[in-house]
């Protein structure tokens, strides 16, 4: 499924807005710094297209915000726009981490206690196909959680929904970046 053109346009606009901030200091930057700047602006831009409604977008914005360097904070502010920035940062800072951490901690405690009981009773168990499948699925969801920003805080259902949205947004990002690169290539032909 192609990302809709409205999403791509919005991303491009916000990305360029973010890159503008670096225009003054472009000469002093190494390639690595430039790449980081580009990637940061792109991430914040694509996350702001969701305006704080999805978990991954909030996590991305939080990542962009917490890095050292006051520059990045201003970047986030500029891309998001002042009012929405306040709302989103409220959600990010207050809502997200603390509640989810508690949830994760209690889940881990539960799992640990259940696991102890389980091993005592069922230790000599034959490896059933279903349990193997379940283990595989659990491993895969763990990996997926590590891929999606903010995935550690989601339950299974939310994880899949966030993955759906994240894939669309990633595609939009890649599309715009590619078209930018190839257009410049075209333009540079003599």
């Amino acid at each position, binding site marked *: 499924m192609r990302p*809709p*053109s409205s999403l*791509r346009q919005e991303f491009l606009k916000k990305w360029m807005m973010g890159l503008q901030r670096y225009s003054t200091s472009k000469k002093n930057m190494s390639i690595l710094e430039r790449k980081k700047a580009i990637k940061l602006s792109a991430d914040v831009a694509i996350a702001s297209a969701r305006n704080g409604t999805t978990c991954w*977008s909030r996590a991305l914005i939080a990542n962009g915000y917490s890095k050292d360097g006051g520059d990045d904070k201003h970047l986030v502010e500029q891309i998001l726009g002042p009012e929405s920035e306040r709302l989103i940062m409220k959600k990010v800072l207050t809502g997200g981490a603390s509640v989810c951490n508690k949830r994760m901690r209690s889940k881990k405690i539960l799992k640990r206690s259940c696991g102890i009981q389980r091993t005592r009773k069922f230790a000599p168990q034959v490896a059933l196909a279903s349990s193997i499948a379940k283990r*595989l699925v659990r491993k*895969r969801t763990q990996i997926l959680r590590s891929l999606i920003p903010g995935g550690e805080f989601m339950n299974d259902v939310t994880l899949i*929904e966030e993955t759906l949205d994240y894939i669309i947004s990633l595609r939009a990002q890649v599309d715009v970046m590619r078209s*930018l*690169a190839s*257009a410049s290539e075209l333009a540079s032909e003599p």
Partner: protein
Amino acid sequence: MATRSNGTASDRGEVEVLESLQFTDEIQHLMSAPTTDNAGFFTALLELPAPQAVQLLHSPESAKLIAAPVPNVEDFKGSFHFPSNSGLIERAARFSVFAGEGNNNTKKSNSPETTSNISSANLEKAVKSEPAESESSQPLVSDPTVEKRSIKRKDREKKVKESKKKSKTAANESSEDAEKLPYVHVRARRGQATDSHSLAERARREKINARMKLLQELVPGCNKISGTALVLDEIINHVQSLQHQVESGSIIDCNFPSMVMPMMWPEVQVNGNRQQYQQQWHFDALQQPVWGREEVCNNYITPENSLLSYDSSTNSVTLHSNQLKMEL
């Protein structure tokens, strides 16, 4: 302009597809809505199948009831229009967990075929919990809490009985302001446990399966694979490859002095030489990315495009901007 006409052409094509799928007028309206920002958040699509499927199941009243979810969808913040989601919506509605109620099939013409391993519990719970979600414009994280609420109410109800009003009033209630969820009346399927925990488990599992089906359709090449682990494998690979592409894309864009370009915008736009740059933006010459593309250009891309040419001899943007001024 060319880009706009292309956009509307694809919309028209989708409208035809929609008509061929025999959707109601309201759904068509929703899908072919103009590309405004509030046209339809993608994950609202996931909430649509439940109320939509309920409407489809009870078609006579469906016309009014479908109108109910529509304003909710449009109220979603940060939403965007999904031009090609008609196929997904149709498939989601048909194969979705919540469609295909055994007892209601007699009324229904559009009921999904084959294995309907769905209990009315899911249907009603979904109908009652999903509207609650969609009517509060909260993020998706609110889903589990709403579900828990309905599960607790079910726990309080020891009896398992079938409610006569079932989907009709459930559908009616869906259009009301569902702040307090009514009791969920559950009918157990034949040969299945009826205690609340397993029902909740089953509901949750089927919700997950419905989402996984949507994911399968999204990721190319997943349709033929069966089995959750393998599908998850494909999804993981796809996400990883996309992330790598973003990384390499940002490195490639490094080489181009793209960061300076915005300063030049007002100058370029003033003059009338834009057509020259628009020709450069001709997509015939461009390579096609993996999932095919149409033009994405709009007005403010073209001036930027002209400024991105990499001047290898001097390796500076300022020289190129001078060239630009001379051209203009």
